[in-house]
């Protein structure tokens, strides 16, 4: 849904045109979710509890509402309406979207999710922190690495040894 806009010809004065199409994507997602809810719960059986409302009533309600809202949203976007991107101190609202940054953060996080059980918390979390800090623009790598290791070891000790929360030990099983 996040393909960059190619229709550079359409320019309105107040809006940045490149947003139009991606926002339409979100609006269509809302619409699509409405359909998904209705279709997805169509097969739910309501054999038990014959009284009152079965398990399909509420999804039907939510799904229909979502379709209605989705249609309005799509129309709104097509007619030129657009939401204001959230303002934040750390965000340069005028900057063009940096898909490389988003992609990098995504890859690092998903790798972390996939490798956590194998590597264990200490290693995986340190790599997560280190990778994210670099992806988000940290310049001093050694410092980032040091902070990463300290943070991951400290959290492991505090929550696993201190509180008995279960986190995977992974590679360091038996060492820590």
């Amino acid at each position, binding site marked *: 849904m996040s393909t960059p806009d190619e229709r550079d010809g359409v320019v309105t004065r107040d809006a940045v045109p490149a947003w139009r199409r991606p926002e339409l994507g979100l609006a269509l997602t809302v619409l699509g979710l409405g359909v998904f809810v209705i279709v997805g719960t169509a097969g739910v*059986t309501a*054999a*038990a*509890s*014959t*009284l009152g409302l079965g398990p399909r009533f509420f999804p039907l309600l939510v799904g229909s509402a979502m379709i209605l809202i989705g249609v309005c949203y799509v129309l709104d976007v097509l007619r030129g309406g657009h939401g204001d991107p959230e303002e934040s101190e750390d965000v340069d609202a005028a900057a063009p979207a940096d898909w490389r940054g988003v992609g990098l953060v995504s890859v690092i996080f998903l790798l972390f999710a996939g490798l956590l059980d194998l*590597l*264990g918390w200490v*290693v995986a979390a*340190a*790599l997560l922190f*280190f*990778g994210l800090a*670099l992806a988000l623009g940290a310049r001093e*790598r050694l410092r980032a*690495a040091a902070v990463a290791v300290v943070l991951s070891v400290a959290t492991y000790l505090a929550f696993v040894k201190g509180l008995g929360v*279960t986190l995977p030990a*992974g*590679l*360091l*099983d*038996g*060492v820590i």
Partner: protein
Amino acid sequence: MRMRRLAVLAAVIAAVSACGSGSDTGAAANALRIMAPAAPGGGWDQTSRTAEQAIKSVDPARKVEVFNVPGAGGTIGLAQLAGDKGDGGLLMTMGLVMVGAVEQNKSQVTLAEVTPIARLTEEYEIVVVPAESPFQTLNDLVAAWKADPAKVSVAGGSAGGTDHIVAGLMAKAAGVDPKQVNYIAHSGGGEALNALLGNKVSIGISGIGEFAEHVKSGKLRSLGITAPARVPGLESPTLKEGGLDVELANWRGFVAPPGLDDAARKNLTDLVTKMHDGQAWKDAVAKNGWIDSFQTGQPFADFLAAEQSRVKGIIAEMGLVS
């Protein structure tokens, strides 16, 4: 370039850790892990952690560790257990609720695959009405139920859980279609208790422990318990005395991963038996108000199989599985 640094770092850490873990294999042979297939705080978690303490007290040298794998009535933990084939150092706490959850969630892994080890405790269920209720005895309830099942709202725990199964069995015994039971699921005994104290529902079903105090104080009235005989300290007839042939114990026990050889199975059974005979376990059972129903070996395996077919039957009759 960044990525290469990252890879180097990963390799170094991996190498260091590999050295470390190599030195630790000797101690692991004696270690026992107990899986509580529920979040901390629930019954299975409590049983697991109590067992952890009790095993440590009879076998101080052994390293025992409890870990939680919550979700979907324990079937997520069950699936994980089935994946650890042949692991002789792993036990999973489970009980009647899991038998129902396996059916209802159409779990890929069933309890037929795992290695039964022991049944530990059980608790009976109690059927109560609010003090203001017109139902004085079980007969009053049965009469009203037969007249119009919709008018009798039954409060209890989650759909398909022990309380719901009792409701289904009672309806069946009373000659009411189990599908017609107007069961109002609550997220635990506390919520159901509130509905009863507020006189919002006709009857309530839960573990004896949840309601006993309020039966004693007179806020609730017991119509019957699912035990084979009366329970000391509680003034209540059994359902059987009242004419409904329903007997059900909400039991808890241990199972081990599939594919255990006889030696490993005996090893675990001996350990659990030793724990059961120790003073720490006896104290904990008394303290928590559990009923000791220890059973191991073939009798427990048979019991587990029988419970599976019984629960499967009633859940289908209640229309809970399609």
